[in-house]
């Protein structure tokens, strides 16, 4: 479903990711581990098409058998890629309902969409008042992550990258979030980016990848995550 070929990414003059080759498959959950500054978020943003991330000429990103390297972020999203942000931005004067209505255009009837969003909010136990407020303004860390999930659910993408969905979230919220993620996983590819094991208590990944200094240093199963939890990243040095 998603293939990264020789992915080398620069931000400004600094090369953050070096020649990454990975394949992600449908119906699978991937966990990407790495210490702070290892290039995890850069990987996520490069897939989503952040215009400030420059790809080397040899790099390629193949999504559903087509190169999306040259596509703008909105086109990538339209093809089914969704990035759940590590620190979702606040947008004054724009609420989640308006955002989704514009993103979906005529694909969904506004009333159906409204009901759908309200149902997700109930499921995730967030105050419906938040849905009508400017997006993420005055929202707690957990609420912001839940609002990201609502967007993911309404847009129904094929690939979802969760960039530290477990950061700044309390245990109860984490349980709800995990449950929500698992419930909607059918037919999708999930990439969970995290630097510790918390969310893996609730979600078992099919594959664990370790990234350090912009390179994939290790790939393995769930046990790899447990090992990192105990021994830290030093063993990859």
């Amino acid at each position, binding site marked *: 479903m998603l293939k990264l070929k020789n992915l080398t990414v620069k931000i400004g003059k600094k090369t953050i990711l070096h020649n990454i080759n990975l394949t992600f498959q449908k119906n699978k959950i991937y966990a990407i581990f790495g210490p702070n500054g290892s290039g995890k978020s850069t990987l996520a943003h490069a897939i989503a098409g952040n215009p400030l991330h420059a790809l080397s000429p040899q790099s390629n990103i193949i999504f559903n058998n087509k190169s999306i390297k040259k596509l703008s972020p909105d086109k990538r999203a339209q093809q089914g890629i969704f990035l759940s*942000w590590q620190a979702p931005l606040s947008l*004054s004067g724009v609420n989640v309902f308006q955002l989704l209505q514009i993103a979906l255009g005529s694909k969904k009837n506004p009333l159906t969409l409204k009901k759908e969003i309200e149902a997700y909010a109930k499921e995730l136990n967030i105050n419906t008042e938040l849905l009508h407020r400017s997006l993420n303004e005055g929202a707690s860390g957990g609420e912001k992550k839940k609002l990201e999930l609502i*967007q993911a659910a309404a*847009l129904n993408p094929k690939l979802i990258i969760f960039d530290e969905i477990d950061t700044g979230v309390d245990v109860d919220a984490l349980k709800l979030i995990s449950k929500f993620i698992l419930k909607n996983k059918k037919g999708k590819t999930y990439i969970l980016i995290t630097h510790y094991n918390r969310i893996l208590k609730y979600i078992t990944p099919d594959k664990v990848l370790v990234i350090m200094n912009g390179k994939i240093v290790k790939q393995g199963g769930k046990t790899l995550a447990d090992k990192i939890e105990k021994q830290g990243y030093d063993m990859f040095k």
Partner: protein
Amino acid sequence: MSKTTPKYVYTTKKGLNKRVVENISYQKKEPLWMKDFRLRSYEIFKQKPMPTWGADLSDIDFNDIYYYMKATEGPANTWDELPENIRETYEKIGIPQAEKDYLAGVSSQYDSETVYESLREDLEKQGVLFCDTDTALKKYPDILKQYLATLIPPADNKFAALNSACWSGGSFIYIPKGVKVEFPLQAYFHIQMQNMGQFERTLIIADEGSEASYVEGCFTKGTLITTNPDYKPIENIQKGDNVLTHTGTYKPVRHAQVRPYSGDLYTIEFYGDSTQALEVTKEHPILFAKRNRSQDRNKTYNVQWGKPSDLQQKDYLVMPINKEIESQDYKVFDTVRGRAGKGKLPSPTKVKIDGSFMRLIGYYLAEGSVELRGYVRFSFGAHEREYIHDVKQLLKKVFSLDKTYDALHSKNNGVSVTASKVELAQIFAQFGTSSDTKHIPQWAMTEDPEKQKELIKGLFRGDGNYYAKKHKSGFKQAFRINTTSEKLARQTRDILLRLGVVAFLNKQMRREQGRKDMFTIGIAGAHMKKFGEIVGIKVSDKINGHYRASMFGIDKNFAYVPIKNIKKKTVKNIPVYNFSVKKNETYLAAGVAVHNCSAPIYSSNSLHSAVVEIIVKRGARFRYTTIQNWSNNVYNLVTKRAIVEEEGFMDWIDCNLGSRKTMKYPGFILKGKGAKGEVLSVALAGKGQHQDAGAKAIHLAPYTSSRIISKSISKDGGRTSYRGLVYVLPGAKKSNVYVSCDALIMDEKSRSDTYPTMKVKEKDVSVQHEAQVERLSDEKLFYLTSRGIKKEEAEGMLVNGFIKPVIKEIPLEYAVEMNRLINLEMEGSVG
């Protein structure tokens, strides 16, 4: 549209001197005191230096300006002479041709006097005085003498002096004690602005306890809108729907709105469609053509936009002809085939789209029935037997179908032919499976008209008849097609328009007899010739010794249908609907062309220097809303001030988008105890623009309060400045001051500054001031685009989100207009 030279052609020479000022007064036949006022002002103008603060005005050449032109004259003589960007923007916004011509100075259709005349009636009952200021000077000289220039004397600033010397046009409004005007005064300003010269002068007096508010024009529920692919009631129109516009092309809806309406509602019935009438509020512009001579049918049609009150019986409403042509040689239909035990498998069918298939569709729409699991059947009456052979040939040609089954119906002596093929059944089922749901698929609505002729032919052969009967008065002839499907009837009418035939639509109510309503498409008179050619029936040129004539006209763009009658009623609080359409801002309601709400104001003048004075007396409330979108070569230097007496309330809403340089600081003097004033302003500066805007609040009395909210946006190297003065004089105890000014800078090239001045000479007051400068971040844009939103749409969202605190206080109609303009600006910036 008359293209002749305007009647009033009077222009002073370029430049300003005493002679010119005297001449203006002479041309206007003014009283002596006004002439003296002008001359005195001119002397002050000469002495006053140019302001050295604010926007850079050094480019203004006072000698290169015409100071007086009759209202019908503009600097450009033809549409083509207007600056290119202004022309483009007009096109983008969809200013009607009539207005375009007027603005370009080639038409005198838009006469300000008549506009006022039609509006004044309603106001007169309440004792409201409302006219242009020139007329007011003749009719109410005493009031003018008492109030004019009391708030903004000529010596106030150089441009106030200039305006005082050569003012022309503007509005005069007097609202008597206790009168609450529920009328769209602002809308009147809109219309009138377009008639204004460069130096208009407005004077408004809201007497004790009076109030003024704003309403705008829209349609009532149930009005059928022509969309792709259906005819939809207006209340179901949504953003993104494609509606047919007056140019005969589809355009997407930007947004839809509904609001309560009280006031006059017009019901306009017209010939050509007895199934519906047009119901509109009194402000709504409608496309129409005047009847040239009341007893004769028009030979030529000059289309123009007008309000319902401009229309008379026998004038023509205009039906735009759908000009979309999307012809395809082949079409693949999604058909499926069942396999024993294996469920259904897709088995697409490719069909050649030609006259043969179209005629077959026509036959099906008239006489076909379908059984989804297996067959399509065409049934004909005994007298239509000849067509059976045609149907068989067509089935063979289009679908290579050799085998069909014939059957004879003993009951009516009819014949039917059955084709047994699952895919075929599935294809024809798409055109409706019962007689009242039959319809033409959207792709066929935009097919090549030559192919469409064949569809009409098939339909007519099945459902049509040729009515010819001798009456006492002579022969009567007509072609008719009957169907119980309303949609099919409307579609047939619309296709016939494409083929140059105007048909009429009738409805026969048969519900009470327990039957389905019957719709008739009729073709009579001169239109029979062309229709006869389509269906292959020869029609003579003459009937009863005369050439065939028709009440309906048609040319390559429009069909013209005469108005049967116009009824006016007063309604209270009913919901009315309207929507905005990309580019053209027009749509088809009940089949005829209408326009969205008033378009914004433009001018190609190079200097606009207006003066607006408002006197708000004890307990009165007045709100003055402006959305200005001047062309980018205009210096917009306007002085606006109000004086507010005890417990009065003045509210300025000021939105500035266009112009090269704007200097505008709406102000109020809070003179009476408990007086309130408010300024809500939005400014957007693009490439080469400087918006220097703000507010002025002067507190003279205790318990007064002022609230100033300013939002500015700069992009593409544009510059915005907030410049505000709040002055609280000693003794204005317990007063409240709230100032908030935010700026949004869209890119590195653009700039924003804030110059707030606070002079507070009284200790017992509450003063609050907030200011914020924000940059549009790439990150936020990425956030929105990563949700699948286009970049320009994301920019529009962020900008609209930014100005939302002001916009939400603006009446809905203006808010919608404002958002639309902002989105247009954003689109422009992306190219």
